[in-house]
């Protein structure tokens, strides 16, 4: 199944991309995807990376076809 991944800030810089569509195994958990991508791109400080699934800050969830998964570095607004 296909999921869209978005990268922001320092993570986008490290991955050298802001978005990609991946074909992943049915039943993959968000946290598993996080681990995969962190290893793949060598994203530093993984504990500071938060996931948003379809624009909600959650990561303990099984992914579904068409989900939008965002990799968010620490916030810096204001």
């Amino acid at each position, binding site marked *: 199944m296909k999921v869209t991944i978005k990268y*922001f800030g320092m993570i986008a810089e490290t991955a050298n991309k802001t978005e990609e569509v991946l074909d992943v195994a049915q039943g993959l958990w968000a946290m598993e995807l996080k681990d995969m991508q962190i290893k793949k791109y060598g994203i530093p400080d993984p504990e500071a990376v938060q996931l948003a699934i379809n*624009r909600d800050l959650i990561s303990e969830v099984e992914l579904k076809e068409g989900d939008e998964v*965002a990799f968010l570095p620490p*916030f*810096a*607004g*204001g």
Partner: protein
Amino acid sequence: MDKKKPKKVFVQGAIAPEKIAQSIASHQSKTNIGAHSIFLGQIRADEVEGKTVSAIDYSAYEEMAENVFHEIREVAFSKFDITCAHIYHSLGRVNTGELCLFVFTSSAHRKIAIEACNYFVEEIKSKVPIFGKEIFEDETHQWKMNK
């Protein structure tokens, strides 16, 4: 009523002081207001290992950020008896000395306006997916993070 309108928060580049004056002026017809509280974030020329910040380049997960701003507004209006609230945040490059955040709350009474303004500022800092690249004078950079 004011809280129901969808609000555009992000503005491209720095927030001009004139925009603040216009916002204030547009509230002079609301004669149930007794107090306004305003918070402004300004870009500091911080020094990091001998280099000086000259700008911050802001980016955001915009669709999510707009949702979060909306939720913060909803909660704020349920917690505080404010007549209105306005938030503007920059995207893109904002130079040192320029403004990147403008929070504006109004109420009949001062304590409510002030508490609501503080609430917005803290919520925005901690919950909204905005990212900041601190650009030094030599065009190298580091990524900012809120404490």
